[in-house]
């Protein structure tokens, strides 16, 4: 039996970044680091703030697309810490910016995050990147 795929909203994640760090040409492509200085996340089941100290390692590939490697720490409004890492593809020529987030937490209240797969749609707005993240059901 094959099954359709369904999803439901998990969080909207807004990031603030400081000036980029251009590492330059590496064997993988052109690497730029976007330090994350903070932000917020909000959803029906969790909300809180993004802690400073994370970043997004963006590599521009030879085929014109960019790959992301983002890692940040989230602090929920009850003080729980959630580690979030995601990879993704940004292909401006095709207006395609999708991510695959993963979560890790020790907080029992948020243990459901350890057990789900998610997909994000992202866009760069004037105030910074905004990621709409959905849980794969």
């Amino acid at each position: 039996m094959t099954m359709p795929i369904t999803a439901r909203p998990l969080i909207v994640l807004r990031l603030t970044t400081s000036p980029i760090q251009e590492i330059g040409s590496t064997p993988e492509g052109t690497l730029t680091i976007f330090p994350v200085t903070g932000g917020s996340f909000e959803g029906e089941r969790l909300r809180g703030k993004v802690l400073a100290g994370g970043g997004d390692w963006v590599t521009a590939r030879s085929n014109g697309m960019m790959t992301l490697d983002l890692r940040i720490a989230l602090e929920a409004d009850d003080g729980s810490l959630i580690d979030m890492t995601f990879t993704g593809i940004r292909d401006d020529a095709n207006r395609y910016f999708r991510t695959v987030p993963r979560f890790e937490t020790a907080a029992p209240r948020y243990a459901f995050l350890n057990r789900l797969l998610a997909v994000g749609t992202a866009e760069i707005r004037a105030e910074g990147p905004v990621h709409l993240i959905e849980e794969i059901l």
Partner: protein
Amino acid sequence: MNTRPLMTMQVRVARVLDVGAVPYGTRRIAPLDGGTFEGPRLRGTVLPASSADWLLLRSDGVLELDFRATLQTDDGALISMKSFGLRHGPPEIIAALGRGETVDPSTYYFRTMPRFETAHPGYTFLNRLIAVATGDRRAEGPVYTIHEVL
């Protein structure tokens, strides 16, 4: 989230190697002895060499799947596929799967996120997409319904 069908893939698990208790959980390796895939834009076979699923049963009961396979399309292109997945469900359902029984796939969570790499000009669209799959574990091996995330 908008998606469209990419392909259905059926793989055959040759045998399962029990590596045992490793620092992060219980590791098993499931080499594949082949398979097939079929979709509107690509179809072909899964090559047995270099295709396997590395399974890690975590302490919270979730099975992590680290899958790698080499696909060969019917026109000869080679495509490398890697996917990360999770499988978990009610204990009695997971036990039934372990016994090789046929289980309704809607009764447990079996989802993966495939990524593709190819150099073949006919399939470079695969390099540029994110995909999501639902899995159905059958006795002879899993069947994946793979969707492109639009």
